[in-house]
């Protein structure tokens, strides 16, 4: 006993115990979140069931009938659309930062892009509502209707009166917000390509773009996937920016120029108004679905990034 105390003095034991409890809090917070959300939504779970809840588009607080389909659809459309906008741009920025930019510009542009991630989402919301939405409504959306809207089938996506408060504007704002996440991960991944591989390709007469396309991107593939999935998780859970520019309208529309709702917007707008137990429970159910979805997606992102890391150190 005396030897043990000499090896591990009492102060060490106390500190180890306290810091262990602190680290355990992280673990228990996640479990507690999952459990509490599950518990709170059990009422809605029993009333509507999982599949019924997910596939029913009716959201009627008066009749007390709730379905998540409209919110899920809004989440899905804004997320996919914002990724479509963000992926090319952010990979382009990453390529610029690693291969094209003069050395002196690398740091300032890198910091500028990361500042996009530091701006709070509510600022994006303000900007989207008061500045971007009018521009969208007056110039960009009518323009899209005149050009792409004339094409059969694709034209269906651009129907309606452009108001600026719609799925399209929300996706644009979201895409700006998630760009820095993909960029910084992709840049780090591209940076790790061994110089000797690039030099070998150049020696064979490859152009710069061929080096990027055939050497660097395949090498950094896993890291880029990780960044994209991470951004997907971010876009899924973004609340305030979307709440400003999406309206809150529970409908499933093919047109991108219509107000809609996402899970996060529904929660933000209706949580404090929920006056019946089943209403509140349905909102908790939505939160549980969002939590589960984003947890799974972020875990996949982490899996990619860890795998990429292991690959590089090989």
């Amino acid at each position: 006993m005396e030897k043990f105390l000499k090896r591990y003095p009492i102060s060490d034991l106390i500190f180890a115990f306290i810091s262990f409890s602190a680290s355990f809090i992280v673990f228990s917070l996640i479990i507690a979140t999952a459990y509490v959300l599950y518990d709170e939504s059990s009422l809605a779970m029993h009333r509507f069931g999982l599949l019924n809840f997910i596939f029913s588009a009716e959201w009627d607080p008066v009749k007390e009938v709730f379905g998540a389909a409209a919110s899920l659809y809004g989440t899905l459309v804004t997320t996919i659309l914002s990724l479509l906008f963000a992926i090319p741009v952010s990979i382009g920025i990453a390529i610029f930062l690693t291969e094209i930019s003069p050395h002196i510009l690398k740091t300032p542009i890198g910091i500028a892009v990361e500042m996009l991630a530091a701006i709070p989402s509510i600022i994006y919301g303000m900007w989207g509502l008061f500045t971007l939405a009018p521009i969208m409504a007056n110039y960009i959306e009518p323009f899209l209707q005149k050009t792409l809207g004339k094409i059969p089938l694709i034209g269906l996506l651009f129907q309606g009166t452009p108001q600026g408060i719609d799925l399209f504007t929300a996706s644009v704002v979201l895409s700006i917000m998630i760009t820095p996440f993909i960029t910084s991960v992709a840049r780090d991944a591209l940076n790790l390509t061994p110089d000797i591989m690039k030099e070998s390709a150049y020696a064979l007469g490859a152009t710069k773009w061929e080096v990027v396309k055939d050497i660097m991107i395949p090498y950094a593939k896993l890291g880029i996937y990780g960044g994209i999935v991470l951004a997907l998780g971010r876009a899924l859970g973004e609340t305030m920016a979307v709440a400003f520019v999406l309206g809150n309208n529970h409908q499933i529309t093919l047109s991108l120029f219509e107000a809609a709702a996402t899970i996060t917007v529904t929660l933000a707008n209706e949580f404090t108004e929920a006056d019946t137990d089943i209403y509140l429970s349905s909102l908790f159910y939505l939160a549980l679905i969002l939590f589960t979805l984003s947890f799974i997606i972020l875990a996949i992102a982490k899996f990619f990034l860890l795998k990429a890391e292991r690959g590089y150190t090989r």
Partner: protein
Amino acid sequence: MIYNPSYVKKRKIKSYTALFLSTTAAFLGLFWLGFILWDVLRHGLEGLNLELFLEDPAPPGIPGGGLRNAFVGQLLIVFYATIIGVPIGLLAGIFIAEYARGTKYARTISILSDIMVSVPSIVVGTFIYAILVKPVGYINWGGLVAVGFLSAIISVIFGGLLSFIFKLVFPVKSAGAGKFVRLLVALITVLFGVVVFLFLSQKLVDKIQGFNGWAGAVSLAFIMIPVVLRTTEDMLSLVPWTLREAAFALGASYYNVIKDVVVRASITGILTGVILSIARVAGETAPLLFTSFNNSYFTTNMNEPIASLTVTIFNYAMGPYEDWHVKAWAASLVITLFILAITIITRTIVGIKYKK
């Protein structure tokens, strides 16, 4: 075929086109940043004046007044969130980087907190709502935790002062007496902490009556913990292992090594992480929407709904009055400047400190 000049030309054109597009993408990113910042600055300066900080809001629709309640509320919420989140994050980071280094447990916690950083903040709000707002009439655990950490920090500072005074007044010669003095100081410190806790919790924490400021502080702390944890872990693992071995060889216990060697070597990085985490939560809105809610009156009572800048911006921007919009922009400008200044300053410090 490869040496055919027209083929080479085609490849070159393709290469230049792709590189041009990448450069355009980079400028697009810069354009968005400039556009947003310029817009916030342009609108924000319109409403920025001294009354904004010093006066309470006027009744809806009547121009004038300020957002003093929101500034004070925001400070209070972020202060208590820091008090809860930073110690937990720091200690947890130290545990997984030192005691549990390389174990499965450390890896799991590290991965989980990476995921927690990105979990939608509105989900955090719903979780805290369920445990700290909905159970009306129960004891407010969030408030007790916050006050607990507050009194712990106060008593640690008190203990430090006390042992300093003891050293000045009774210079100790023998090892036995030194041990006794240390024990005495520790005992007094703990007693002092308990007394402070009992006093403050009586005074500050009430039963839950609905939306309350404590819930807001706890939900921000929830977001802070993983951020602080990850940066602490990263910074501690940058300290070379040989430094610890040198201290071990002198017979120091692990606690002493952590306290006097590891943390001291990485204190800049750790503090940077703490400040960045404060900047991160200062802009959060979603978790506050249904925890601390909003209050159009001035209050410092954390048991009531309490105004925060971000929620006020949301309500004012969605409101019908032109004057509200001006105020929302001004508040946005203040928050943006605060966060960007912190981000740039800390990045510069880290850049200087860890330059290779």
